[in-house]
């Protein structure tokens, strides 16, 4: 189990193109580490580098001060992971990673069943089903469960909440937060609103480089300057009502953050 994963002057290239320039900082256990940025800012590239799929980079990645070796230490859940099922049953799909670690069927079954339960799936109902027979939310849970069953110290999620309804997003966000006590959880997302509620840090990638934020600070910057990061319109209107004037800058970020969260919950409940 690692405590932190540090990026030391990480510059990622593809041929002559520099995709990420001089990234520094670290991701820690016990919190959700968000990576946000506009399309094409290099979020998914960073995940690929961390997972060891892209090796063309300068600088180093260290886990607790030692050079990080991705193999066996990391799991990457791709965007729309439910499109990547490659087994015929839920049983095989969730147990695949353990099978690859040469565990027997008898050993795998109890672990896989309890892991499915942890991810909110009923193994009695779906154990022998084809993964594609499950509902949208269940497929997503199965895919993420299958990626994390072998308990890797570092877990990478690419847009895990995309395409889920508000309730599903909230439930999944809580699951991810729960995972952060045992893993270093790194989440790439376009919609950080829900995850900003959790304790964590945020790495903002932009064309000139990167910046680390506390969630409330990031939210505040986005509310003040719409060009900084595009938050949903209802967010802005909620804050507008809250402030009742245009003097946003003096408002404390935490107050704005709490109010917006409350509004969001009301919005989700209404739905």
């Amino acid at each position, binding site marked *: 189990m690692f405590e932190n994963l540090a990026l030391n002057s990480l510059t990622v290239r*593809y*041929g002559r193109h520099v995709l990420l320039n001089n990234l520094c900082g670290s991701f820690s256990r016990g919190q959700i580490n968000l990576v946000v940025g506009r399309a094409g800012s290099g979020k998914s590239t960073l995940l690929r580098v961390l*997972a060891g*799929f892209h090796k063309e980079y300068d600088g180093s990645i260290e886990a607790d001060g030692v050079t990080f070796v991705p193999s*066996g230490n*990391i*799991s*990457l859940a*791709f965007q729309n*992971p439910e*499109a*990547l*099922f*490659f*087994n*015929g049953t839920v049983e095989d799909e969730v147990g*695949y*990673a353990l099978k*690859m*670690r040469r565990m027997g069927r008898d050993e795998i079954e109890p672990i896989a069943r309890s892991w499915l339960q942890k991810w909110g799936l009923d193994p009695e109902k779906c154990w022998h089903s084809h993964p*594609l027979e499950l509902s949208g939310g269940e497929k997503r849970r199965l895919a993420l469960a*299958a*990626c994390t069953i*072998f308990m890797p110290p570092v877990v990478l999620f690419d847009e895990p909440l995309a395409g889920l309804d508000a309730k599903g997003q909230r439930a999944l966000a809580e699951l991810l937060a729960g995972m952060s006590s045992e893993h270093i959880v790194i989440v790439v997302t376009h919609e950080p609103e829900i995850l900003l509620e959790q304790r964590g840090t945020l790495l903002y990638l932009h064309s000139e480089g990167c910046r680390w934020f506390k969630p409330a600070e990031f939210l505040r910057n986005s509310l003040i300057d719409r060009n900084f990061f595009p938050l949903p319109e209802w967010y802005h209107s909620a804050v507008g009502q809250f402030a009742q004037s245009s003097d946003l800058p003096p408002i404390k970020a935490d107050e704005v953050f709490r109010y917006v969260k409350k509004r969001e919950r009301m919005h989700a409940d209404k739905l």
Partner: protein
Amino acid sequence: MQISYKPGSGALYRLHPMVKGAIAFSAIVFFSVNTLGFSMMTAIIAFMLLCCWFSGVELSDIFMSVRRILLLLIIVGLIQGFAADGFNVAAAGAAMMRILGVFLVAGVYVTVSSQSELTFFWESCFRPLGLIGLPARELALVMVIAVRFFPVILSEIDRIRMAQIARGARLDGGGILASAAALMPLMIPTLTQAIIRAGELSLAMEARGYRVTAQRSRYQRFRFGIIDIFAVLIPVLLFALLLKPFFAGTF
């Protein structure tokens, strides 16, 4: 990096799709069956690349992709080189240049032809089949959709491979048989996804008004320009060069 259409405005881009297709086809046939030597082939390829460069064709992706066929080039070079007594460098080089030429022509053709141009070319090629009662337009559409989805399916396979590796599969070791066995699980999800996508695509096309029997107009009209008249000479010249040995004694 995959070779794909990159918009441009150079001479090669402005050609009529039929002329582009004819040049590409004739050049591929020319590189495949000609008997010219290494130096002549190198000169032709260099001239071709120079023309592409002047037309503003972005060649970097094509050059990067040559790495993928490097092994094939080396194997062909070795086989051709050892075919004579000792090792014939010129024969090996000529064989490698022929394959490289075919690859470069195909790469340049895909880079300078947009989706609608490819569709137009395929449709025009299939049109004669309509005379004998075959559904020419639909066959062309099938071809274009297949070509269009090829890179999508390739990237899907790549994603599934990475998903397997991320979960502990070792796809790169253990010899050819083990690698082939590891590829088997890729087939089912890829085929499943392809069928799901095909179903969704057909629904989307029908929802947007596509009917097999309907008469359709064209969004883009392609006109034959002066530049095309000169460009037609290229395939004519290439075929004349290829056929020359057969008529050597006639004139």
